[in-house]
């Protein structure tokens, strides 16, 4: 049986405080869903809690990569489960999976102000660009930290961040 100690709690709290903003931003970027990101954040850190000794023993940059990899895998599992659920629903209703109501579409009809436009423009970015941009803007991570989390060179992160910003500028007509 695993027994947690006060030291474990202190170690875990330190890991949580250090990484939660970045992990949350990454999950938000991947899912574009605030509620899902919160659920996944809790699930990610629950796994860290269960293996806190193991994670704490890693060098700092590996800790970040380990925690983000757990989050990434949870997102993939969620996508798979969601795809199965949609396909099942569609089969039951006699509709194609693509025909299932898309919350994004519904949302697009309902929102009009500037921040909603930003949100939509970000949601429409390819997942990798969206994740990197969200980790930078929401998580306030540096290119090096994003690189450690996503296992990419910092130069690649900077290039992709630039690409994301260029697309947003064009989309939002910032220059108008």
């Amino acid at each position, binding site marked *: 049986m695993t027994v947690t100690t006060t030291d474990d709690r202190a170690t*875990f709290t330190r890991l949580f405080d250090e990484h939660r903003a970045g992990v949350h931003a990454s999950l938000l970027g991947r899912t574009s869903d605030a509620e899902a990101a919160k659920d996944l954040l*809790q699930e990610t850190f629950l796994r860290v*809690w269960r293996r806190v000794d193991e994670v704490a023993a890693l060098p700092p940059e590996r800790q970040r990569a380990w925690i983000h990899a757990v989050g990434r895998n949870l997102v993939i599992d969620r996508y798979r489960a969601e795809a199965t659920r949609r396909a099942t629903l569609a089969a039951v209703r006699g509709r194609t999976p693509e025909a299932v109501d898309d919350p994004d579409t519904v949302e697009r009809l309902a929102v009009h102000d500037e*921040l909603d436009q930003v949100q939509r423009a970000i949601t429409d970015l390819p997942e990798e660009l969206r994740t990197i941009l969200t980790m930078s*803007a929401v998580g306030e991570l540096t290119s090096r930290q994003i690189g450690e989390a996503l296992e990419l060179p910092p130069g690649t992160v900077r290039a992709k961040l630039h690409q994301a910003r260029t697309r947003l500028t064009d989309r939002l007509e*910032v*220059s108008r």
Partner: protein
Amino acid sequence: MTNDERLDSLLDSWAATQRLDQREAERILDAIIATPPETAPAPTTLPATWWQDFSAQVTAAVVLASHGPRLATNPVPLTA
């Protein structure tokens, strides 16, 4: 204001609406720490030491079976 500054301003405003607030973060932290430590699952396979012992016994049996009977190097003298 340059395009970059304008975009930064938009992104900052958007990011502020997306961040997890402190209260929510504390709720998540408390919920996780309140989770009882995971109990190690009951072993569903034999322990490694059992396999080591078993393997040693098999090896010994194979070695024994592949050798002929030991020669009597010190025969007991026949007595009348």
